[in-house]
């Protein structure tokens, strides 16, 4: 479904990604783990069209979407839940969701709104509250719901558990499970490696902009060198 080949991205002088490749198949939950600064966020940003790409190609559903504008990539069926959630703080929950469904028709949007209200009961309770007043966990759910509003074929999440209390982290992973159960395709960047590997079908380990390991979640969990790789021994 998604096929990233030899992606290299630079921020000015900083080489954030070096020749990174990955694939995501339909219906898969793929984890992307690694220490902060490893280039995980950059990878997602590059796929989503937010960051300029220096070399490499990105194909989605057989189409080349390399260096497309974010709005085009979204229309191709890829949706990103950005790091730090980046909800629109002075807009209400409903408005945030509507924006998520900006590419959908009015009727479809109304349907999706109902669907989200059902899937995320927390949001239903705060429907008309400005999103800025929500707690971290609620905001994260909103961010995910907002991304789902575009009916993406593939949803990418960047650090969904970031800054959340442990109980909320559980919630996020339950959510990922729920989405998987619905048959959705998900690519998740996560620093909570263990949890991620348990939740994922497959995972890639990124370090210093390079993919250093890949395999199924279970395989990687068993890798004895993982901790070292992970924290840079």
């Amino acid at each position, binding site marked *: 479904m998604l096929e990233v080949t030899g992606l290299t991205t630079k921020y000015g*002088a900083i080489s954030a990604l070096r020749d990174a490749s990955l694939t995501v198949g339909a219906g898969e939950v793929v984890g992307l783990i690694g*220490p*902060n600064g490893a280039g995980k966020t950059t990878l997602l940003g590059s796929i989503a069209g937010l960051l300029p790409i220096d070399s490499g190609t990105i194909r989605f559903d057989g189409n080349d979407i390399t260096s497309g504008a974010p709005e085009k990539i979204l229309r191709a069926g890829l949706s990103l839940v950005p790091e730090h959630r980046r909800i629109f703080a002075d807009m209400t929950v409903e408005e945030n969701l509507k924006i998520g469904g900006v590419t959908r028709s009015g009727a479809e949007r109304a349907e999706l709104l109902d669907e989200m209200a059902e899937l995320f009961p927390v949001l239903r309770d705060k429907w008309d509250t400005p999103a800025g007043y929500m707690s971290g966990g609620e905001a994260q759910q909103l961010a995910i719901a907002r991304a789902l509003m575009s009916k993406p074929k593939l949803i990418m999440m960047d650090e969904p558990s970031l800054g959340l209390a442990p109980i909320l982290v559980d919630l996020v992973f339950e959510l990922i499970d729920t989405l998987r159960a619905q048959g959705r395709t998900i690519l998740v960047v996560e620093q909570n*490696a263990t*949890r991620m590997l348990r939740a994922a079908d497959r995972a890639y380990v990124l370090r*210093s902009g390079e993919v250093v390991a890949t395999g199924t979640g279970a395989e990687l969990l068993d890798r004895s060198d993982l*901790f070292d790789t*992970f*924290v*840079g021994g």
Partner: protein
Amino acid sequence: MFPNLKRDVGFPVIGSFVLFLALFGGGLIYQTILSNGSAERLVTTMLIDAIIVIGIQIYIGNTGILSFGHIGFGAIAGYVFAVYAISPEEKLKRIPTAPFGLTDTQVSPGLAILIAVVVTLVFAVIVGIGLARSGAQSGSVAATVITLALLFVTHEVAKSWPELTGGNRGGISFAIGESLEGRALILVVLFASMLIARLYGQSRSGRLAIAAREDSLAARAMGVNPLVQQMAALLLSVVIVSVGSSLRVWQIGSILPDRFFFDYAMLTLVMLIVGGRNSVTGAVLGVAVMTGARELARRLGQDGFEVFGLGLDEAPLDWVFRENLNSVVLGLAMVGFMIWRPTGILEDWEFDQWLYRRFGRGTQTEPGRLAELDDVPAATFEASGVSVAFGGFKALTNAGMTAESGEVVGIIGPNGAGKTTFVNVITGMVEPTDGAFSIDGVDLTGSASHELSRSGLVRTFQNLRLFGALTVRENVEIAALVAKEHRTERTLRDVDSLLAEAGLWEHRDRRARELDYGNSRRLELARAAAMAPSFMLLDEPTSGMSDSESLTMIEQVRHMAATVGAGVIVIDHDLGFITGISDRIYVLDQGQVIAEGTPDEVQANARVQAAYLGSAADR
């Protein structure tokens, strides 16, 4: 005052002189070819415009704050000059009831210019304080609007105070004996302004202002107080603009409010922007180019004028090129340059610095390695009970740490653990809800960024913040300049040695923004070291580096710190790097210190492992 006499004084003097000769010589050639009075007048006008544009460049170029107000200062100076310089007989014609007994006053033109400068400076100080209060920094809109307000207010007052100014249509016309005969005075002032502008740009104050222009936050972290430097640049630029404006009034022989208003402000700005606002050479080039372009446009608008056999009388495009084409030229130049080259023709290229690099530097040898300092005064950094809450969210709860000089202390934690908040607190960017921090018992809580770094706590930034347009060497020099003033009790290291030490010797003359990532990081380190800090606070110094680069970085951080005798507080998410570099480590999670100890102790700590691999890590 000047870090390097040859580079910062010698060559600017030579360069300014050549530049001066080029502008004046070009004018003379044009004048000789045409040999008529209007060519002569055009050249005189150009020379005076050059003085004013150079004056404006000192402010806009060095601070990055867009000012429309300098022509407002020019208006003040022009009027003060006029009311003092013109003869009482002339004043009786236009302003017979001038206040303050000015109708009967007359002083020599030279003295009148001096009075104009002094009076204008008073206004400049007031406006400067206003700008500082409004938090002016490079590109700030509020500051620009304040300068615009000055332009409008001076214009309004000039129009509405006819007793003093002759009003908008009457104006003050004057014979001060005779009008400005000959160009000797203009030439002297022009050369002086070029020289002053260049010397200022190379001086300590100019350097610090430019640093703040490039990156206000980083400059403050290097102990620079941008507001002081901006004020210095403002006053200096106002002096030159005042003298230039007085000469302009003297040359035209009359003054009216509209002569120092929007159109002239735009003209001078376009000149500056077309040439390159960050460069004196650019300002001069812009004056020449725009004067030429406008004169060409003016001529093209006239019947019977031809250039290279091309006239517009019969041309099919006649309808495009009518009279007053030069105001169209002005607008097009403005939009065109903004779209295609907003930094102007020369950007910040300076003729004298090019000369210096080309001919003046000679061969330089890389200095030998520096010995590590062992007799530095011991210092202690201590933070205790630091808590920060944003609204209901507790970003930090009762966090504390200590560090000694000579020690490397690591702070680590996963994303969102409170590291950034902690850094923000001890760099003066966030006021803690509770708690305090100090160096050697001196409480620093609540100090401004530049005060903290002057007190010995110097930081680097997670997202590189170098002074991109400056060379590698200049980046380090700026820190050294501040250290020389504020860190006198410490051993100050030579800039070149620090560059060599950081492995940047061969790159010393490249612009900082051209460096690759590793070198940029090393430059930031060298720059911090040049501040002769008691403690260096390194914020994620290896983010974006490969493993091997990180390893090298460990060596460099340790060595660089030892070279200036500083303690190191390093914040990173990379446990590998932190354990490699640190003597002791604090681990933050969920806003709290969850572990403290040697690398081995910390790595063995189950809570740390859990924090890193996830809450359910159990292996």
